[in-house]
């Protein structure tokens, strides 16, 4: 009993301390301008989430002004590098594609960041991956895909993009009859599926939801998320090596729509940012707006997100070797 009381008191004290720290940090933001970097051009999921997060964080960080700055380039690398290299004064945060995880795993020289060292504010949503198949293709189920005698065409963005990496590793490790066609950016893959030249694509569910709702396609498997209408890929696969790669893709999708700053933001300011982020995610109006956009809020906060990132990066040497091999051979 005493112990429990003690624990409760301790918790109360820590919470109060964190609260005090956040308050101290919040005072710093009065009259300050915060740059929120979005690593893509306007439009699309990252921009939508970024603008929403910035708008409502400003609401809860009294006296602050958030400015959204689009910094597209090199598949989010330019923006991510810029956030990482910015001054850690808590006045620059931003969002970029979690697919950059792969770049760090493969130790590509252009990725000048260490995701585990960044100051994690939170994540606004997750973005499960799906196998989307064109309505006109004869593939109705996962088994149908496996049974294809001839390889079917799958579209991905450019070589090296997250969509390319995911498609190639899943194709290799699951031995799928897929022929990859690269260079389909934005919504080009959807049009190509409508024209019938592409059978499918491994993509984020949110971008394909309306495509499927309009009757142009179907989902045959999903990685991550809690939708009940599509079977989870992990349940369709037995091979352990494959499962570990699927879980890597899943964690990537889980932490999508993140908000982070450079390493070593002072603790009180980071606490204030995290508190504002939490209030923003719990704001009724923000939730309603996100829902309307078809980009619902599924928030995660601070250290939890950091832990997810660390777990995702903690891959066995075999997995990393597999990734590198997938990237080097076409």
């Amino acid at each position, binding site marked *: 009993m005493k112990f429990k009381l003690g624990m409760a008191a301790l918790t109360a004290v820590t919470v109060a301390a964190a609260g005090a720290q956040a308050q101290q940090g919040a005072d710093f933001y009065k009259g300050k301008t915060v740059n929120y970097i979005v690593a893509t051009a306007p*439009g699309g999921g990252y921009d939508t989430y970024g*603008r929403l997060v910035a708008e409502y964080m400003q609401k809860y960080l009294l006296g602050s002004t958030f400015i959204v700055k689009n910094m597209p380039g090199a*598949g989010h690398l*330019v923006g991510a590098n810029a956030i990482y290299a910015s001054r850690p004064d808590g006045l620059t945060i931003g969002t970029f594609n979690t697919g950059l995880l792969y770049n760090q795993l493969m130790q590509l020289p252009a990725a000048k960041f260490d995701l585990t060292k960044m100051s994690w504010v939170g994540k606004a949503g997750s973005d499960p991956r799906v196998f989307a198949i064109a309505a006109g293709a004869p593939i109705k189920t996962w088994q149908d895909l496996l049974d294809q005698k001839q390889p079917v065409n799958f579209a991905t963005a450019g070589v090296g993009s997250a969509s390319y990496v995911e498609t190639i590793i899943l194709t290799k490790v699951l031995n799928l009859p897929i022929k990859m066609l690269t260079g389909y*950016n*934005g*919504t080009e893959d959807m049009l190509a599926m*409508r024209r019938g*030249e592409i059978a499918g694509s491994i993509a984020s569910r949110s971008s394909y939801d309306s495509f499927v709702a309009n009757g142009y396609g179907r989902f045959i498997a999903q990685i991550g998320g809690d939708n009940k209408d599509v079977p989870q890929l992990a349940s369709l696969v037995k091979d352990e090596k494959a499962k570990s790669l699927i879980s890597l893709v899943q964690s990537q999708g889980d932490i999508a729509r993140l908000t982070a700053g450079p390493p070593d933001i002072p603790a009180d300011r980071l606490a204030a940012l995290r508190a504002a982020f939490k209030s923003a995610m719990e704001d009724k109006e923000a939730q309603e707006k996100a829902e309307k956009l078809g980009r619902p809020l599924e928030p995660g906060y601070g250290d939890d997100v950091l832990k997810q990132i660390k777990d995702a990066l903690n891959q066995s040497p075999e997995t990393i070797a597999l990734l590198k091999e997938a*990237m080097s051979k076409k």
Partner: protein
Amino acid sequence: MFEVMFSALWAMLTSPSIMGLMLVGVFIGLIVGVTPGIGGRLSIALAIPFVFGMDKVAGAVFLLTMHAVNGTSGQISSIMFGVPGDGDDAATTIDGYPMAKKGEAGRALGASITASGFGGIVGACVFAFMIPVLEPVVLSFSPAEFFLLAILGITFIAFLSGGDNIFRGIIVGLFGMILATIGMDPTSGVARYSGEFLFLWDGLSLVTAVLAIFAVPEMIALGSRGGSIAAVSSTQARFSFRQIFEGVMEVPRHWWLALRTSIIGALIGMVPGLGGSAAAWMCYGHAVQTSKTPERFGKGAVEGVIAPETASNAKEGGSLLPTLFFGIPGSSGMAVLMGAFLILGIQPGPAMLTENLPLVWTLIWALVVGNLIAICFLLFVVRWAAMLTFINGAVIVPFILMLVVIGAYVSEGRWENLVILVLLSIIGYGLLKADWPRAPFVIGLVLGKIAEESLNKALGLWGMGFFLRPISLVLIGLIALTIGIAVWRQVKRARRSAAREIAA
């Protein structure tokens, strides 16, 4: 059908709140248009928080008109100072700026504003007519056709070489195509000609290249020559509403050209994948190719202003089609607009036709009325703007160079583009000094990239036999015809000059 059509118009015109918002939308759109570096999509992204909670019809009309009139004001600076706001406006510069130099800025502006509005309205009509056949038309264009369309556009270079020497145009065009290969190759994952510079991975910034090749050289020339942009005095130029009105009348005089380029522009906009700049350039090339006096182009031919302006505004109506009825946006601008529509509670997709037909008609009418308002407003105010071309160059050059620098920086927010601006400006000035054509450079840059990407896709999909599709064969025929005409003209010209030499 007609009942829905006109009741939508009536409902729109009689609603003070919708018309008020449309006026605001037109006004903001025009301001964003004249500001270098800020594109239409950014203005919509910024407006999204304000439309939240707005009535869906009013909000959609507001955003659409704001987006649609953007291009109408964008060409003002490309005509007056040779400073294009983006890739589309660059085509207008080629003949618009020489007109300003001749003291005809008013005529050029009158023509371009009217052409732009005309294009926007024709684009809306194409939108309305194409609804029933949207699917088969849009879906019949695949990477194979994109590749051939791009090649067709590239062959127009032959007609843009200005003087007697076709090879100069080809050399400059090839230079543009070489620069188009800079960046990450989507099929090999290799960053080409990019060194360690991440900002080059996405290719050369089109806005920066266009400013460097067109605007900066003109400003250097103006500064070293002295005097004002217009080589004649303002009294000689009879600068007045009359001159602007003359420009306005150029559009009905060239109505057949304006109609063709509007329709081509709307069709290019309708088929996602070619991009907005391609429309303006292909129509410019088309105007030169079909002209009886192609040698006038580049020296201030009014058709060279009308064609790209009609095309770049007509494509807005076209590009709205796949966005609204497939739910698949055709451009990044449309992607932002679609996001805003979702916030308003409009769900783009095939159900728009069955459930939201009145809204569809309202949007079509909004394009028409918004463009008309923009034309009237601009024709009225532009008179004072055009006076700037008579100001002494020493006063205006620093100011315009500042605009150029801001435009190159803001378009992508990267300082590295300023280095590119300086480097390419040197080449641009060299071309100007040597009197080599500069338009082929931009065509090579814009279409070279599309050609390469589509060729890679087409080969991946169908192998070497990709061009044996019906539309592809028609396009190949057009390409052969274009090259044939170019060669024939060249030979004829060579013979004529040879005959002249013998006679002498």
